[in-house]
């Protein structure tokens, strides 16, 4: 009897000792992305990069274990908001990162930054509202403001001498920003502008027919993930690839290329990060990622990796003490980490001031489809909305 009692007591004690050191003892990060449905490949690329960042950090930040809670937004704003709320209220994470979609991010913003007073780091979406009037001391971006990448593309189209353009994008927050962006810098003639239903419209026959009719010198598109795959394929099926070149942002990348294949060869796009950027941390990231998964990482992944490294830089500087939010924000604002795109500074609205590159779709030495940098379109670019932000 005594022996038995003693035995159970030992087991109980052992169990206690084995328990993770408790929520306060780890650095807890929530990560919201799309892990199901046709856009799940993007979420998977981000998760792989977050895990790689964790591995490169040795699983620890300031001596404390890193704990990441992944949540699936199912590509829906309402679900994203509910999942974000769960991360803040129930899991009590110190940071919420991720967010592919501008509409999901806009739905979740207040829940995290205001009601939860938790720091949100967008690893992709960059709606204009948050760069301007909705800017928030708890919001940081390791990506860009939506308009910026297409603005870089527009600049490049001017220098390339593309005389007329037809622009197409999805009818939601990011689509409107992206088309506004290219129109802001592009100086040639705009022959047409179409917005398609998001996210259910994958059939672009009507739009492609209009483009064929308008005979522009170029098409500009913004169609992330599965939609980009469809647009590029249908552009080829309609025979337009022989007559009208395609210029794109976020529509031809490491996620979509395996399905687009040679149809995408030679197309040009703009991006703030490319897998061949020649800095040490980027070389290591791309090489390790490729070794693990046999595919190239995408900018979604690179931005997610950067989000974790940004968090790590702040937490390290504070020796793991995340209790004082003002101090955490001040440290984050320094952006004192080795970003995969090379060093950048935060603007007053806490969006990066950074370069944008022009990339071409090519085959690598092994015959795998990828993109490579061919030019720098914008140096130290700032977004167009930061002066509307109340933070100075």
């Amino acid at each position: 009897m005594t022996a038995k009692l003693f035995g159970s007591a030992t087991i109980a004690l052992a169990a206690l000792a084995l328990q993770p050191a408790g929520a306060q003892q780890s650095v807890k990060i929530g990560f919201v992305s799309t892990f199901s449905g046709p856009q799940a490949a993007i979420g998977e690329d981000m998760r792989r990069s977050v895990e790689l960042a964790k591995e490169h950090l040795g699983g620890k930040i300031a001596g404390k274990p890193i704990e990441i809670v992944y949540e699936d937004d199912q590509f829906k704003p309402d679900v994203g908001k509910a999942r974000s709320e769960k991360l803040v209220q129930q899991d009590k994470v110190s940071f919420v990162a991720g967010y592919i979609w501008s509409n999901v991010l806009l739905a979740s913003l207040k829940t995290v930054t205001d009601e939860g007073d938790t720091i949100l780091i967008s690893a992709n979406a960059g709606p204009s509202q948050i760069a301007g009037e909705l800017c928030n001391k708890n919001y940081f971006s390791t990506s860009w403001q939506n308009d910026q990448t297409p603005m870089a593309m527009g600049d490049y189209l001017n220098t390339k001498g593309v005389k007329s353009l037809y622009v197409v994008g999805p009818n939601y927050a990011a689509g409107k920003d992206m088309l506004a962006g290219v129109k802001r810098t592009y100086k040639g003639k705009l022959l047409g502008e179409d917005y398609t239903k998001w996210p259910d419209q994958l059939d672009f026959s009507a739009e492609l027919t209009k483009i064929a009719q308008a005979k522009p010198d170029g098409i500009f598109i913004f169609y992330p993930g599965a939609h980009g795959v469809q647009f590029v394929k249908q552009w080829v099926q309609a025979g337009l690839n022989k007559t009208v070149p395609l210029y794109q942002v976020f529509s031809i990348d490491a996620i979509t290329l395996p399905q687009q294949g040679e149809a995408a060869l030679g197309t040009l796009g703009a991006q703030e990060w490319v897998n061949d950027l020649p800095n040490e941390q980027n070389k290591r990231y791309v090489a390790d990622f490729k070794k693990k998964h046999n595919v190239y990482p995408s900018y979604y992944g690179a931005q997610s990796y950067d989000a974790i490294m940004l968090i790590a830089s702040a937490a390290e500087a504070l020796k793991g003490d995340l209790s004082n939010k003002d101090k955490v924000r001040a440290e984050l604002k320094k952006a004192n980490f080795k970003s995969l795109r090379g060093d950048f500074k935060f603007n007053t609205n806490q969006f990066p001031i950074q370069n944008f590159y022009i990339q071409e779709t090519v085959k690598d030495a092994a015959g795998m489809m990828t993109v490579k940098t061919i030019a720098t379109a914008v140096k130290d670019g700032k977004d167009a909305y930061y002066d509307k932000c109340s933070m100075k």
Partner: protein
Amino acid sequence: MDYLLIQVLNGVQLGLLMFLLAAGLTLTFGIMDLVNLAHGSLYMVGAYLAWTFITWTDSFVLGALLALPATFVVGVLLEMTVVRRLYARDHLDQVLATFGLILFFNDLVRLVWGPAGKSIAVPSFLSHTVQILPGVPYPAYRFALIVVGSLVALLLAWLVARTRMGMLIRAGASNRRMIAALGVNIELLFSLVFGLGAVFAGLAGLMAAPIASVKIGMGDDILILAFVIIVIGGIGSIKGAFVAAMIVGQIDIVGRAFLPELLKAFLPPASASAAAPAISQVLIYVLMAAVLVWRPTGLFGQRT
């Protein structure tokens, strides 16, 4: 002119896809008096089965030919295990049960094929353009959709109008008790009709797959339109479903192709092209409401 022709063809192609989905729905609704919300799930299952067989055989045509009987089997099994028990219940019970089936199928697909969604490539022999008129190119795959869709519509028309099974289907649509009383094996007929509806839904799903994507819940959005189509066309009427699908297909294309240009005359481009699809969606429902006022049983529905 060429532009108009191509846009009309785009509408026809969309209409034919929706007709295939609506045909099965109108048959089960009209003959068995069954509201089957899970019809969209069969559309999804057809597309996923096609993906499996196409990956396995490495041929689009072969994969599609294997997927159709497989979808038929799924349909018949579903009818024998679950749906059969619902005929005697009222419509609300059927809605509840078949809504449950949607959830069941979505999770089943998630278990079997994973959450990520699949993509089916356009077969290489159709990945170019054809000249529908000299100097007017049209994507070959879409042209093939129109050809296959039209052939299936003709086949269905022949089946319903000229065969014994078609006669029973028509009789069942107008008075189902009577044909049971006449000694027709109604159970077998219902299983076959349900299976046939499943095949058409599966065919629509697999043909749409290369121009959309194979994903969980892919049938749920399009199902609502299919219901609108059978209501406009008249429940139980194949001809009605065809005419209504063609009208809805054209309205959709008008909303995307012509309405934006019209609206741009007095609206900024962004609002114009955002408003146009919304207006064409509304137009479809306005049409449905108008038809219901004018002919409560639909364009080709049975008068009661």
